[in-house]
């Protein structure tokens, strides 16, 4: 990590918990360029010929291995669109850590639009962690518009953890997934917006195969004058089960729009959605205050727990 400056190191820590170079395969990208890369015997990372991003190829039967592909931007005024395509073989069990951190101290907007596409092979298990973080006190905006597409083959499973807790001024994230028979998708999204930030999160999951399932839970906290829109849609095209849950805490002058929707095109599709928006319950604050916390400390504990 010697070649990175302090800001870049901090961003890598925030988005990928990296204090040093990770074990396994990795591709570290800073300010629009690949800064460091390592492929392993089973996981190959190669640049796309047209220079628009990278392909990550994971061989069949690759188990207990990981790939880290974090991106950091510390220059003001940099805008990029990057395609990362993951080809996960059959019978794999892998961890993929992505994420983007932007530090913008300047006056121009910085923007990273990561397009992540996954082709998950038969009976493979993928755990995907994506964290987004912004810092810097410039007037330039920190903008992240990630798009995630997931194509899941028979018997595969994927667990996605998407986190955006701090500092991103504007985000519009789109997650699309198509599942074949017996494939299972679990998504846990956590969003916190503050100041005048805007976050829009769209999901469309198509359950195409018999006994496929999806469980999508989005928890959000909108503080100050921020805005969140959560649009969670599941389409059931076979005997499948789907569940979406939007659970939001609204504070100050925040605004939240939750648009859960379900579409069943098969009589055997079982789909459920839940959506709730509310402020922090008064009795929760009182309980924590009787344990010695101030009102502000109690609020922090409640939000930390909620977004944990």
């Amino acid at each position: 990590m010697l070649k990175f400056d302090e800001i870049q190191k901090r961003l890598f820590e925030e988005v990928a918990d990296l204090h040093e170079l990770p074990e396994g395969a990795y591709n570290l990208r800073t300010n629009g360029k690949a800064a460091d890369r390592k492929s392993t015997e089973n996981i190959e990372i190669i640049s796309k010929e047209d220079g628009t991003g990278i392909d990550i190829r994971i061989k069949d039967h690759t188990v207990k291995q990981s790939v880290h592909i974090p991106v950091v931007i510390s220059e003001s005024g940099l805008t990029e669109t990057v395609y990362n395509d993951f080809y996960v073989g059959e019978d794999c069990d892998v961890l993929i850590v992505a994420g983007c951190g932007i530090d913008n101290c300047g006056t121009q907007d910085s923007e990273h639009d990561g397009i992540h596409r996954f082709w998950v092979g038969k009976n493979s298990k993928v755990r995907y962690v994506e964290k987004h973080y912004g810092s810097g006190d410039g007037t330039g905006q920190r903008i992240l518009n990630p798009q995630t597409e997931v194509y899941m083959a028979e018997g595969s499973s994927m667990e996605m953890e998407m986190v955006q807790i701090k500092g991103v001024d504007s985000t519009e994230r789109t997650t699309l997934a198509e599942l074949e028979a017996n494939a299972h998708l679990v998504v846990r999204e956590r969003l916190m917006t503050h100041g005048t930030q805007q976050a829009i999160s769209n999901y469309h999951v198509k359950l195409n195969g018999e006994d496929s399932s999806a469980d999508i839970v989005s928890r959000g906290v909108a503080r100050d004058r921020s805005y969140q829109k959560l649009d969670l849609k599941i389409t059931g095209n076979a005997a499948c089960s789907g569940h979406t849950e939007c659970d939001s805490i609204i504070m100050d002058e925040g605004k939240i729009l939750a648009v859960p929707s379900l579409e069943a095109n098969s009589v055997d599709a079982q789909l459920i959605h839940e959506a709730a928006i509310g402020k922090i319950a008064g009795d929760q604050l009182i309980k924590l205050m009787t344990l010695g916390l101030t009102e502000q400390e109690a609020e922090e504990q409640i939000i930390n727990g909620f977004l944990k």
Partner: protein
Amino acid sequence: MLEFQNVSFTVDDDQGKKEILQNINLVFNEKQFIVITGPNGGGKSTLAKLIAGIEKPTSGKIFMDGEDITEMSITERAKKGIAFAFQQPVKFKGIQVLDLLRIASGKRLTAAQGCDYLSEVGLCARDYIGREVNASLSGGELKRIEIATVLARKSRFSVFDEPEAGIDLWSFQNLTRIFENMRNNISDSTILIISHQERILNIADEIIVLKNGTVVKQGSREEILPEIIGTDSAVDACAALRRTEVPENA
């Protein structure tokens, strides 16, 4: 230790003002296990909330160790050593039992230390320490965790608002054992319980009967309990069961 001087509490309702408590004068001493009973609507829970600072008196003063705490916030009173167990334990999304015990104790308890508090309230600690304090827990489990958070505070003045409310009889039998233990191990603290249950009243040093917002009886257990047994101020949790017992030869 704690004193109410002429405390009244009034709320506005459809018919105008309603007096919930009227000119309450009470002194709660150290090393005492005090039970407040009386009919529903008599003002018991309000009195408990006034102690914790969740409600403020309309008039009158509350003192702790001679210091006027009437205007002190909930947090300040907690820091002075007042703890409060809710009648309806509060649920949280994402906050785990260990988190709550850590907040309560003000220390970064290890899992093992957290487990000690859970064991004290009769919960198999390993199964609960990492659970979220949410609706997946039963009423009895939440109640025990609520009591464990009060124990973890090591407070000087602990108030329990109807610990028997909302739990089944089986859980109640076990809960009374926790209070019996507290009674036996009382050191310099005061324990105040709002309860109608005879088993709790049976271990009281002092009993206070509150009715229509005023103290109608106050004194030692030996003095008060015989006067209230069989009324709705001293309910035998198992009497109902015994009445419905099926005769052996039926």
